[in-house]
């Protein structure tokens, strides 16, 4: 059975454990460290042409990922001051664009990003840029945690009577039983206060929940036996019912 929970940027325990600046530094150091190591590998004259091409591709894609993160952080810092243009948007179009934008990265990881198109989906009222950034962040996260040779599924659907549309990204990574996790955390909780990432990149979740709240939306996750879905709920456009 899937377990669902919502994410509030003001209620993320890891932020209490680790200063957000430190978390941001960690998140930026990891890709930069990888780029540096790939740069070293290019100096290795015994490296095959194929491995060399792969290293160059990974340097480019990792750089782009870091730049996305820094751009998102900048946007997060300016959310309170900024005025965002809210407009009717097609969730189909948003999902298709993200799937297309992220295909070079997903292909480099041997993953397919698949969009599950549904009929009669209303438009949503959101800021185009922020919504794309949220879904992109979910896909980026899924690419890093999905099992190799598995797919990543984008979905958009109307939920409940709330007139909200849920855009979700599901990966098919290994399922982690709550019992196994609880056992490990219970053992370590009294002996260390080192931070853990709840399900994925904590900073990424902080960014997307900030973006969602700026649009009166909400972010959450559903844990499956064989992976995780991250979702954003945004208001459906009431105009669509007249179309």
């Amino acid at each position: 059975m899937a377990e669902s929970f919502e994410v509030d940027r003001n209620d993320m325990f890891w932020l209490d454990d680790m200063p957000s600046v430190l978390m941001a530094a960690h998140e930026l150091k990891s890709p930069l460290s990888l780029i540096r190591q790939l740069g070293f590998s290019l100096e290795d004259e015994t490296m095959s042409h194929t491995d060399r091409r792969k290293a160059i591709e990974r340097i480019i894609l990792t750089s782009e990922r870091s730049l996305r993160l820094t751009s998102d952080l900048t946007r997060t810092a300016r959310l309170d001051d900024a005025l965002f243009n809210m407009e009717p948007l097609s969730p189909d179009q948003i999902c298709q664009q993200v799937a297309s934008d992220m295909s070079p990265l997903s292909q480099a990881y041997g993953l397919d990003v698949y969009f599950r198109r549904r009929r009669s989906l209303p438009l949503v009222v959101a800021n185009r840029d922020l919504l794309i950034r949220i879904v992109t962040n979910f896909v980026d996260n899924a690419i890093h945690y999905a099992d190799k040779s598995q797919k990543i599924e984008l979905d958009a659907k109307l939920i409940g009577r709330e007139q909200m549309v849920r855009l979700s990204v599901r990966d098919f990574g290994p399922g982690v039983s709550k019992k196994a996790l609880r056992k490990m955390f219970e053992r370590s909780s009294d002996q260390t206060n080192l931070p853990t990432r709840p399900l994925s990149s904590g900073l990424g979740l902080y960014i997307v929940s900030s973006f969602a709240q700026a649009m009166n939306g909400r972010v959450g996750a559903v844990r499956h036996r064989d992976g995780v879905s991250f979702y954003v709920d945004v208001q459906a456009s009431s105009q669509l019912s007249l179309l």
Partner: protein
Amino acid sequence: MIDVTGLRVLIVDDDKWLVDELRRRLTAAGCLVDGAGDGIEAIDKIDQALPEVIVLDIMLPGANGISLLHELQSYSDTGMIPVIILSSSVEVADSKRLSPYGVTDVIDKATMMPDDVVSAIRRSQA
């Protein structure tokens, strides 16, 4: 120099491309390398084949590297495996606090040189 040919090394890191890069270097040094993306997968891999050295990232999805260290320490066969910590957050990974858990080296990913992990593996076998 200590020969590491045939040494079974498990790399536990959620960065698949970094694992690939380390695998390439350690394989060139003669090690037999396996990789795991998180603590749970690492335990599965350890159950299948006991490694002789573990290269472990601290920040892992789901359960952190420290949790895995505690798990390893709770069994006699895994408690003796030398562990090399590889992290972007070495400032929060106090090597003195980690030494009781079989940690022989702490390497900062940000300043790591190409031969550092192989050298640390050799030291762990001294």
